[in-house]
C-alpha cells in the first residue's frame, strides 16, 4: 500500500504560504521517498508547523505544488482529501487531544471512525498505549495528563491506524533526554514494522538528526539546506552549521532572524 516505486511519498515544489500578507513560506521544495525519514529543523515561528499542515492537506498553499502519496493536493477536492487523510497520521505540536474523550477513546478514535471491529480496536489501543508507556492511564482525561504524557497519547493516536505517512510536529519538545530517546526508538520501531514514511519537525536537532536519514533546514521561508543527517553538523553553510550546533557566535544572524520571526504579527496566532 505504500506509494509506487520511483514515486515520492511527499513532493513539494515552490510552495508558498502567507497569512494576512505576512509571508511564512516562500518557495519550499522538498522530496521524501517512500519509507524515508525526513527531519525538518529551523528557527521558531519559521513555518515548520505550517509546512506539516500543508502536507496533511489541512491548509492550502498560496503557490506551488504538493503531491502526497500520489495525490495532487492543490487540485484535490474535499472528498479526495478526506480519503487521503485516512492514510496519513499526524501528531500536532499542541497534541490536539480531544478533551471530551478519555486517553483510550482518543487513541481509539481513528479506528472507530474507520469502522474497525470493537474487539480489534480494544486490542490495538491497548498495544499502542503499552508501546508509549501509558498502560494504566486508559481512563484518564487529557486534562489530567502532563505535557509529555499528552505528547505520547498524540503519538499513539497518530500511529494506531498504521498510516502510510506519519507527520510528527515536535514529538519530543519538553521531554527529558531519556524519554526523548525512547520516543525516537518507538518511531523507528513503528516505521520498521509498517514501512511508513516519516516527517519529523523538531527543535531538538541532535535527537532528530540521530533519527532521520535526511535533514532539511527551513530558514526565511525556504529550504536553506538539505542533506544526509550525518553531514548536518559539518555542513558547509555557516548558518546551518551554527544553528545545528547551537553556537551563538556564528549563529548570531540566525538567532536575530528567528527572534524577528518569533514576534507575532498583529492579530496573528500565538
Amino acid at each position, binding site marked *: 500500500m505504500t506509494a509506487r516505486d520511483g514515486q515520492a511519498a511527499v513532493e513539494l515544489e515552490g510552495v508558498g504560504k502567507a497569512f494576512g500578507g505576512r509571508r511564512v513560506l516562500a518557495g519550499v521544495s522538498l522530496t521524501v521517498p517512500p519509507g524515508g525519514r525526513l527531519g525538518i529543523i529551523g528557527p521558531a515561528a519559521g513555518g515548520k508547523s505550517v509546512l506539516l*499542515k500543508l502536507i*496533511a492537506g*489541512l491548509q492550502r498553499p498560496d503557490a506551488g505544488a504538493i503531491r502526497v502519496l500520489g495525490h495532487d493536493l492543490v487540485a484535490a477536492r474535499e472528498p479526495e482529501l*478526506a*480519503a487521503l*487523510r*485516512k492514510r*496519513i497520521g*499526524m501528531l*500536532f*505540536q*499542541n*497534541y*490536539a*487531544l*480531544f*478533551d*471530551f474523550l478519555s486517553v483510550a477513546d482518543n487513541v481509539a*478514535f*481513528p479506528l472507530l*471512525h474507520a469502522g474497525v471491529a470493537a474487539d480489534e480496536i480494544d486490542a490495538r489501543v491497548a498495544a499502542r498505549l503499552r508501546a508509549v508507556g501509558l498502560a494504566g492511564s486508559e481512563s484518564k482525561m487529557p486534562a489530567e495528563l502532563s505535557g509529555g504524557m499528552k505528547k505520547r497519547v498524540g503519538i499513539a493516536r497518530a500511529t494506531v491506524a498504521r498510516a502510510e505517512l506519519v507527520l510528527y510536529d515536535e514529538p519530543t519538545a519538553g521531554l527529558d533526554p531519556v524519554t526523548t530517546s525512547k520516543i525516537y526508538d518507538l518511531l523507528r520501531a513503528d516505521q520498521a514494522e509498517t514501512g511508513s514514511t516519516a516527517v519529523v519537525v523538531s527543535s531538538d536537532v541532535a535527537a532528530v538528526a540521530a533519527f532521520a536519514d535526511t535533514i532539511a533546514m527551513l530558514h526565511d521561508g525556504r529550504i536553506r539546506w538539505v542533506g544526509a543527517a550525518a553531514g548536518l553538523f559539518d555542513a558547509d553553510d555557516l548558518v546551518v552549521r551554527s544553528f545545528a550546533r547551537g553556537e551563538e557566535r556564528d549563529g548570531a544572524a540566525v538567532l536575530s532572524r528567528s527572534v524577528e520571526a518569533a514576534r507575532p504579527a498583529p*492579530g496573528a*496566532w*500565538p
Partner: protein
Amino acid sequence: MIFRRSLTQLGGRVMAMARDVGGVFVLTMEVLRALIPPRLDGRETVRNLYKMGNRSVPIVVLTALFVGGLMVIQFAAFVKQFGARALVGWGTGYAVFREVGPILIGLMFSGRVGANNTAELATMTVTEQVDGLQALAIDPIRYLVVPRVVAMMIMLVALTVIGDAVALIGTMIMSYVVLDIHPYTVWYSLVDNLGPSDFLHGISKSLVFGAAIALSSCYFGLTVRGGAVGVGRAVNAAVVGAAVSICFLDFLMTYLTA
C-alpha cells in the same frame, strides 16, 4: 476629520457584520447539506442533549415559575378593577405561550448553553482539536456542528414546553395567593380560550430560535481568532448575535402570522 474617521469605523463595522451574517448563512447551507442524506452522529447528539438539558432545566424551571407569578401581579390591578377574574388564565397563558416563554427561555438558553457551546468550540479550534478531527478525515460540520444544532433545537423546544407548564403553575399559585382565584378557574380560563395554535405558535418560535442560537454559537466558535483572548471575544459575539437574531426572527414570525 473625526467625522471621516467615525465613518470609516462605521464602514468597517458594517463590513464585519456583513461578513458574519454571510458566514452564518454559509454554515447554515453546510449544515443542510450535511443532513442530506440525513446522517447524524447519534453519540454526539445524545451527549450534547444530556449536557445541555442538565445545564438548563433547573434555571428554566426557576425563571418560568417567577415569570408565571409575575404576570399575575401585573394583571392584579386590572382584575380587581374590572372583576375580570375569568381572564387571568387566558391573559397570562396567551402572553407566556406565544411570546414571553419562547423569547425569555431562548435568551436564557443562549446565555447558558449557546455561550458554553461557543467557548467549547472556540477552545477546540485554538487548541487544534478541529484540525485534529480533519486530520482524521472527519468533517467538523458533520461531527461537531450538526449534532449541536439538532440537540439545541430539540432541547429549546423541550425547555419551552417545560417552561410553559411551570409558568402556568406559577400563575395558579400567585392567582390563589394574590387574587384568591382557584387554580381550576385559571385552568378553565386557559383551556377554554386558548387553542393548540397558540401553543404551537410559541413552539415553532422555539424551534427557529434554537436553530439561530446554535448556528450563531457554532459559527463564532469555529471562526475564533487570536488564541485564548479570542475565545472570550467569540463568546461575546455569539451571545449578541443570538440575541439580535432572536428579536429579529420573533418580530418576523409574529408579523407574518398575525
